[in-house]
């Protein structure tokens, strides 16, 4: 690593979304020397897109308690969530939200000054009795407000930001300890080693593996790619939450309110097909039922469009005035992103990837963990993860709305606290770096810089997204998945010989995209292979050939290793920290 510049920190946090900022704050306030890396300016992280709110059983509107919240989360996870972690999160929720309030987060308020709360799907009172108001929000800008609040607080605590820096790889030594990252400064194109006693991944989700995705372009699963390349398994990658109505070809969400106001779905024959799948509630069936019906129509050749690739969302019968009044903004969104005016024409929509439940396996203290080879689990020294890139696992097979922002706050903080403990307890000085610390990364970059022909990044990316959408989407068919595995293995081969024509150093977006593709490929492969192996339907993993949940054989977490695409499994933690287990029951609402 001779001429590669090196800088030393107590801790390096990769990612400046809600989870990275919350963790960094904990570290900076403990007076540690912290570097936070982000591909984009911190307040442009994807957390900014979250509108709905953050859950906590504050009980400001009606009686509530953490145990009800825990029940909802366990049930929502379709019993794949670890109950100790879920208890931990739900118990800490109120403090996490109140703390944010004290930091200055502009929550909406009730007349009595307390935080206003609204209902959200899956959150109930008294163990499923009826919907409850548990979501705390700042208008429709909850994520935005959260990011700004945490960013300001970090500035005050002297967190050092490395903005427009892209972490490329983890550095691990022979013992398997993580010693920092190799990173690229986009402005100069220079590569640097950031050496640290603790490295915390907070790189968010990887929704860009699908052609239909609500995720911003930066959501390329870099932390997952880095972990996979370093020999660390990825947990439960077959579980992705889909939203039924994203604009075809764009991904932009069309609110469920459209169907609430009387809009309905049509196939290419103009048939209102939801009548067949859900005769009573029709288009108002739950998200997964609607999305599965749409996928079936498309798979069976009844999709609209040139290639039969989408479904039509019709609302013109409501009339322009009603649409403007009850669904403000929808016409503008449809015009901009679908090129149709819904007052006259239907909106083309498809089930659209929204949230990643899997990730880097961690415990409740944010420490990355992996099997020790002797039937137990070991902590990977020096590595931590939090937020959407981590799998604690509180969301199990299916995340409840508003539980993700809560996850960022609770586990961002607990990971930060653990780092503070670990650093002061047993790592006084920085361990030596192995001589080959940056070799693999430099070889990857050198190949990209020298290749003059090969595969185009865009072509390989498009093929990956198409493959994942068609073969491992919201509803999974056996023949199609087996073919998907073959196709993804082929796409991954192609990705090894990508090339870029722009070899410049400064802000070379083409190079960044090529490196992002490497990460997306790991995520897509892990998803495809984990999904093909799981012979049941649970939460967001929905198979036509195994329509039921199989608790006898499959109540376990998947672990995918890059090497040899190997799978292992580990048990679900059914035992909470202090209370009784919630025994598995059918998940009906």
């Amino acid at each position: 690593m001779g001429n590669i510049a090196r800088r030393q920190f107590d801790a390096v946090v990769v990612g400046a979304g809600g989870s990275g900022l919350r963790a960094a704050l904990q570290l900076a306030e403990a007076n540690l020397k912290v570097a936070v890396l982000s591909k984009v300016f911190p307040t442009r992280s994807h957390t900014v897109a979250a509108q709905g709110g953050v859950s906590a059983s504050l009980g400001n509107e009606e009686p509530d308690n953490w145990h009800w919240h825990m029940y909802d989360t366990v049930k929502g996870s379709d019993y794949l969530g670890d109950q100790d972690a879920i208890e931990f999160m739900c118990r800490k929720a109120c403090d996490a939200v109140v703390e944010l309030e004290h930091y200055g987060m502009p929550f909406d308020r009730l007349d009595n000054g307390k935080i206003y709360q609204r209902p959200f799907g899956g959150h109930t009172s008294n163990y499923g009795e009826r919907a409850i108001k548990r979501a705390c929000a700042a208008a429709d800008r909850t994520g935005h407000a959260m990011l700004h609040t945490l960013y300001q607080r970090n500035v005050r605590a002297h967190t050092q930001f490395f903005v427009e820096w892209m972490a490329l790889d983890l550095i691990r030594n022979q013992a398997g300890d993580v010693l920092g990252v190799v990173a690229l400064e986009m402005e100069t194109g220079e590569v640097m080693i950031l050496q640290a006693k603790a490295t915390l991944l907070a790189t968010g989700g990887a929704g860009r593996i699908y052609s239909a995705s609500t995720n911003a372009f930066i959501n390329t699963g870099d932390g997952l790619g880095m972990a996979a390349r370093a020999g660390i398994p990825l947990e439960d990658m077959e579980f992705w939450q889909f939203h039924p109505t994203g604009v075809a070809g764009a991904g932009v969400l069309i609110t469920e309110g459209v169907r609430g106001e009387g809009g309905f779905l049509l196939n290419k024959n103009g048939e209102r097909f939801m009548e067949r799948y859900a005769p009573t509630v029709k288009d108002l069936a739950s998200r997964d039922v609607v999305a599965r019906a749409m996928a079936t129509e498309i798979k069976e050749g009844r999709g609209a469009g040139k290639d039969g690739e989408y479904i039509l969302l019709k609302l013109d019968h409501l009339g322009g005035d009603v649409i403007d009044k009850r669904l403000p903004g929808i016409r503008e969104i449809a015009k901009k992103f679908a090129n149709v005016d819904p007052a006259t024409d239907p909106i083309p929509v498809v089930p659209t990837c929204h949230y990643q439940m899997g990730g880097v396996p961690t415990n409740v203290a944010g420490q990355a963990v992996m099997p020790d080879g002797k039937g137990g689990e070991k902590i990977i020294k020096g590595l931590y993860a939090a937020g959407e890139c981590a799998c604690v696992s509180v969301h199990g097979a299916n995340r409840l709305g508003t539980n993700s922002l809560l996850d960022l706050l609770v586990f961002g903080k607990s990971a930060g606290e653990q780092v503070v403990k670990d650093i002061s307890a047993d790592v006084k000085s920085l361990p030596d770096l192995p001589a080959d610390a940056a070799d693999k990364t430099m070889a990857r970059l050198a190949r990209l810089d020298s290749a003059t022909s090969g595969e185009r990044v865009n072509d390989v990316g498009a093929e990956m997204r198409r493959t994942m959408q068609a073969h491992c989407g919201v509803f999974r068919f056996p023949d199609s998945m087996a073919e998907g595995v073959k196709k993804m293995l082929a796409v991954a081969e192609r990705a090894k010989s990508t090339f870029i024509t722009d070899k410049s150093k400064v802000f070379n977006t083409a190079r960044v995209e090529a490196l992002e593709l490497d990460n997306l490929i790991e995520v897509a492969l892990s998803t495809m292979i984990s999904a093909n192996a799981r012979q049941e339907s649970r939460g967001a993993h929905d198979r036509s050939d195994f329509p039921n949940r199989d608790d006898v054989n499959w109540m376990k977490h998947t672990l995918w290793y890059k090497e040899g695409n190997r799978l292992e499994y580990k048990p679900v933690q059914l035992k909470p920290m202090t209370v009784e287990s919630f025994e598995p029951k059918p998940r009906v609402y």
Partner: protein
Amino acid sequence: MSSVSDDRSRDRIFWHCRRGLLELDLLLQRFVARHLDALDDGQTAVFVELLEYDDNDLFDMVMKRAEPVNERLSPVLALLRDV
């Protein structure tokens, strides 16, 4: 002042079109493909200034839910509203 003829600032602009909101990613990508080459230095500077806005504020302006505080931004914003 930046200029698109200056490759470096052009590349920087490309990257600054990567946002936290997918909606902006899509619109800015279209804008860059259609208009960036034809902007003069002054317009380019305004575009760079618009990119400095927070995602939700910029998106509100593009969707005409909000007006820019400074009229200077209006002509380039008008192009962006139209893509």
